[in-house]
């Protein structure tokens, strides 16, 4: 359309849309006259305008928002060359960083994908590649190893080793570093830089974000040579603009805080620029702020060029003079006045560290109670907002008042880390990769002086077991079996053979002051060799992080392929509150002792844990378990505690529906309340979430057996026993279920094996008594029942059982003596009515038996759950009263 007619149409259209559609025709007649073409065009546009509705009302971004969302990060599982993205672990100015799996070498790697911005200029990239390669070829333990640099049309990327840890930035902002820790980190950085400088490589961008501190205290420096890329001039600008650098606020993505004056001014830089930046870093670690920090970038810049940094003593007291000297020598504005080499600086740092440690040892040996001896070791960073004339006692801190142990811990830490006490043994590939691997985590040894810290070593072990047992291609020995080897001195091959596993995890935990030192070893049981080992030094508060790191490391070193869900599951932390977690562990520790006062103690710990973290699902599950144990201990009223158990279980599920433990405990609680269907649903859900948990199989088998689904029950309990071969409870129950299933001989066989496994365990003897009595061998039954009662004299079930078999044997007087004992007991506390009913049935007093069964029904006696399958009731099965009772119990 010609311009003129377009403009004409435009004018007419603009006027026409202001007129109501119905009145437009006369207007168009007039406006267009006999210009039919314009008229057609305008009419067509008006029609389109009326039809358009919401067309283009939403900004265009709306149409592609989903794609943008998706593109914001590479998704897990996406392949990138032979790397498979696991998840994004960081994003910065230069690009995004992903944890990925190298599918060829089966190892985790970090992939940094460079923004286009940094990839424009090819010669720049080449220079960067050259330098990165050179830095990597130094093969220095404190320098991140670069595996590959990929330059493709799609993207430019750098693949490096994957380091688990926090940036020094996080470390500085989250924890107060103590002097020995500061020196240790500093020495490692200086070491790496010295090596790089010897190879004529300058980092240029030393700052806390470029330094990773591993959980074990080991330091890695990142991004060698990358700084050059950042400095690259935007396209279209030549060297002639360099003059303007004098007024620069700093390169666009960088911060001026860590720059040397010559760097900020855009002058030529050499290794001494790293000395300066390192000095800034050291200053910040000690003083809690950078030396030239101003309110704005330009102020910082001015300070850097013109002012001397405030003395460190203003922010931290008792900084050793020598350290202050080292810092200020590193921060000289003229590079000729600074340390000329990193090596010199390193030497001074090492000397200082040694002198401090020596002085400490000396003082301690002379006056063990001298509180000041610990002073210098208790460095913490200061609060910069404090008035400067009132020096904080930063390097002394609260520990001055107490705890010489903490000082020792700190000293040990220095020694340990300083010596590079870090053992990576050659990584062996565990045998066949396609087969499901098997592993047992042996109870960690409590290496602390304090036996009270046992809850911690037990708890950490259990948590690692739980974390690992969620992995589908790993068979993990359950807690119950593994804990049989607590404090066991047998050699690892022997233990592995008994447990039927290929690999073992062993470890010990030492609590020193507020530090935990955890040693872990992964052992190939076939030749007793170490596959992997590591030492974790953690603040007590970080115990949760430590155990999931350990679980992840084990999985990694077993070369397990983890699905994305499994990656998430294994990293799942039950709570972020370390104190709550410790209370939870204490709770577990006590509840496992299964006596009334211990369980009550455990409940109190769980409640404290919940008070600290009201969203702590696992603590609610633990609480539920504890209440159920109280209800089933046959001493307290089940109607008081089963509902409590149920409430806690429901709360746990409400907080975390994906928590297998929560569904297990709810299932078990419902089972003992005769809610068979719902109980089964819960067990199924629990197994879906964690198919390798022996406890769930045991409970589920119990439900199946008691409701008469014997074949299924036997399959389930067999599965539990496979997972937990040394757990006598599973063996005992299997005997009982075999009896329920009408296989007394097989039952006896299984029970006998369980006797061997656990000679002092009462339960298999109790069940053996039932088997003999069913076979009519009452003498043997009495012997077994007596044995059970000897081993567990307080269990009313043992008393009732013995009384029953005595009655069957014809020793009615003896039976009545025991009956009277129970009747008397029932006057003062709860005795399960079913137990009394059983005795009356043995004595042939059927009415009495029904009377007590009725009481059992009224009191919701959990043990009524056995009525359908316990052969002791076989004589009454045709009784209408019995039939009717089973109906009420929904067991018919």
């Amino acid at each position, binding site marked *: *359309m010609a311009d003129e007619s*377009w403009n004409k149409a*435009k004018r007419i*259209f*603009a006027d026409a*849309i202001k007129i109501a559609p119905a009145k437009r025709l006369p207007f168009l007649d007039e406006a267009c006259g006999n210009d039919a073409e314009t008229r057609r065009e305008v009419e*067509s*546009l*008006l029609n*389109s*305008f009326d*039809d*358009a*509705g*919401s*067309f*283009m009302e*939403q*900004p*265009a*971004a*709306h*149409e*592609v*928002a*989903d*794609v*943008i*969302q*998706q*593109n*914001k990060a590479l*998704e897990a599982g996406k392949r990138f060359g032979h790397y498979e993205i696991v998840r994004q672990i960081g994003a910065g100015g230069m690009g995004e960083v992903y944890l990925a799996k190298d599918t060829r070498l089966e190892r985790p790697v970090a992939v940094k994908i460079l*923004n*286009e*911005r940094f990839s*424009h200029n090819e010669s720049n990239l080449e220079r960067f590649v050259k330098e990165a390669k050179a830095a990597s070829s130094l093969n220095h333990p404190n320098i991140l190893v670069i595996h590959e640099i990929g330059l493709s049309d799609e993207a430019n990327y750098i693949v490096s080793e994957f380091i688990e840890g926090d940036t020094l930035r996080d470390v500085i902002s989250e924890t107060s570093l103590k002097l020995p820790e500061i020196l240790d980190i500093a020495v490692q950085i200086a070491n790496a830089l010295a090596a790089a400088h010897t190879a004529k490589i300058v980092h240029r961008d030393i700052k806390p974000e470029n330094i990773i501190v591993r959980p074990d205290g080991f330091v890695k420096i990142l991004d060698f040579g990358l700084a050059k890329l950042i400095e690259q*001039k*935007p*396209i*279209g*600008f030549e060297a002639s*603009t*360099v*003059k*303007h*650098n004098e*007024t*620069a*606020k*700093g*390169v*666009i993505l960088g911060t001026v805080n860590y720059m040397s004056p010559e760097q900020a001014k855009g002058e030529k830089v050499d290794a001494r620029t790293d000395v300066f930046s390192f000095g800034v870093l050291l200053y910040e670690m000690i003083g809690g702020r950078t030396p030239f920090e101003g309110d704005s970038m330009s102020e910082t810049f001015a300070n850097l060029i013109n002012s001397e940094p405030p003395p460190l003593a203003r922010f931290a007291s008792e900084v050793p003079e020598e350290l202050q000297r080292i810092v200020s020598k590193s921060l000289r504005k003229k590079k000729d006045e600074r340390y000329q080499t990193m090596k010199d600086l390193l030497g001074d740092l090492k000397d200082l560290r040694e002198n401090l440690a020596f002085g400490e040892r000396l003082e301690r040996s002379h006056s063990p109670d001298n509180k000041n001896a610990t002073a210098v070791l208790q460095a913490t960073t200061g609060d910069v907002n404090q008035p400067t004339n009132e020096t904080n006692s930063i390097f002394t801190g609260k520990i001055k008042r107490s705890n010489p142990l903490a000082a020792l811990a700190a000293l040990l830490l220095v020694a340990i880390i300083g010596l590079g006490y870090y053992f990576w043994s050659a990584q062996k590939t565990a045998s066949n990769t396609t087969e499901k691997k098997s592993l047992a985590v042996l109870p960690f040894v409590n290496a602390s002086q304090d036996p009270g810290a046992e809850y911690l070593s037990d708890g950490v072990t259990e948590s690692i077991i739980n974390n690992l047992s969620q992995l589908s291609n790993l068979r993990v020995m359950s807690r119950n079996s593994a804990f049989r080897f607590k404090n066991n001195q047998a050699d690892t091959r022997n233990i592995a053979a008994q447990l039927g596993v290929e690999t073992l995890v062993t470890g010990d935990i030492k609590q020193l002051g507020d530090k935990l030192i955890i040693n872990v070893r992964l052992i190939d049981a076939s030749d007793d060799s170490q596959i992997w080992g590591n030492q974790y030094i953690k603040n007590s508060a970080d115990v949760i992080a430590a155990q999931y790191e350990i679980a992840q490391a084990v999985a990694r070193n077993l070369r397990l392929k983890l699905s994305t869900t499994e990656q998430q599951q294994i990293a799942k932390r039950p709570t972020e509150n370390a104190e709550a977690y410790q209370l939870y562990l204490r709770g577990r520790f006590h509840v496992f002792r299964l006596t009334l006062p211990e369980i009550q103690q455990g409940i109190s710990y769980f409640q404290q844990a919940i008070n600290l973290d009201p969203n702590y699902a696992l603590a609610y599950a633990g609480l539920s378990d504890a209440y159920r144990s109280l209800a089933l201990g046959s001493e307290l009223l089940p109607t008081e505690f089963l509902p409590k158990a149920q409430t806690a279980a429901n709360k746990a599920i409400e907080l975390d529906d994906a928590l297998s433990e929560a569904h297990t405990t709810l299932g078990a609680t419902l089972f003992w309340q005769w809610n068979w269907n719902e109980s089964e649903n819960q067990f199924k859900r629990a197994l879906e979430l964690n198919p390798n948990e022996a406890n769930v199989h045991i409970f589920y088998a119990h439900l199946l057996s008691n409701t008469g689904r014997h074949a299924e029950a036997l399959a389930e309990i067999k599965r539990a026993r496979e997972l937990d071969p040394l757990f006598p409870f599973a063996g005992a129950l299997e005997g009982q279920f075999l009896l329920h299933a009408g296989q007394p001989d097989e039952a006896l066989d299984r029970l006998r094996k369980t006797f061997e496994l656990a000679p002092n365990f009462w339960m298999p003897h109790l069940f053996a008594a039932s088997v003999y009595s069913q076979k009519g061998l009452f003498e043997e039954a009495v012997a077994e029942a007596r044995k059970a009662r000897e081993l567990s004299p307080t269990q009313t079930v043992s008393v009732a059982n013995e009384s029953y078999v005595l009655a069957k044997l014809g020793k009615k007087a003896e039976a009545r003596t025991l009956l009277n004992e129970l009747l008397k007991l029932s006057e003062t506390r709860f005795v399960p009515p079913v137990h009394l009913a059983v005795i009356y049935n043995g004595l042939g007093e059927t009415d009495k038996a029904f009377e007590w069964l009725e009481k059992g029904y009224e009191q919701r006696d959990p043990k009524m759950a056995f009525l359908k399958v316990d052969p002791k009731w076989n004589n009454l099965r045709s009784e209408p009263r019995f039939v009717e009772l089973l109906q009420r119990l929904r067991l018919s």
Partner: protein
Amino acid sequence: MNETQQITQMLRDWGGGNREALEGLMPLVYDELHRQAANFLRRERSDHTLQATALINETYLKLIDQRDVNWESRTHFFAIAASMMRRILVDYARTKNREKRGGGAIKLTLNEDALVSKERSIDLMALDQALTRLEKHDEQQARIVELRYFSGLTLEETAAALKVSRTTVVNDWAMAKAWLHRELTR
């Protein structure tokens, strides 16, 4: 000279008639917008409406040296940013189409929200082509579409960016919409 200042300088040069400056400027603006877009969505995960104005403003603040910039530069910047936004969003649409065809991650779903509000989804690639045709008839209308639709500017902002009256924007926007709608429904 740091990057901010260089970009500001380039804007000024471009405003002064130096076409090469635009060449240098485009990739920088593009990169920054791209990153801002991703950042934006990361922050407002549940909200699918990309607030493009804020986005361009943020990009602007980030890239331009504020002490050394006049209204002129700002107008230029918005014009570039708007055409960049068009390119970025059309690129995304292309990706989306490709993934649909390739049976990739994106399923050809009926957006339930869209059904409820009776919205039709717009094929941005087709719209982009139509817009290029419109540009031949009326460049100002095309710029308005870039600013309004692709960059989400208000009528007032668009008027200010193009230094035209609000009424002009209203009229041109209405006609461009009608014209493009007709092109896309043919």
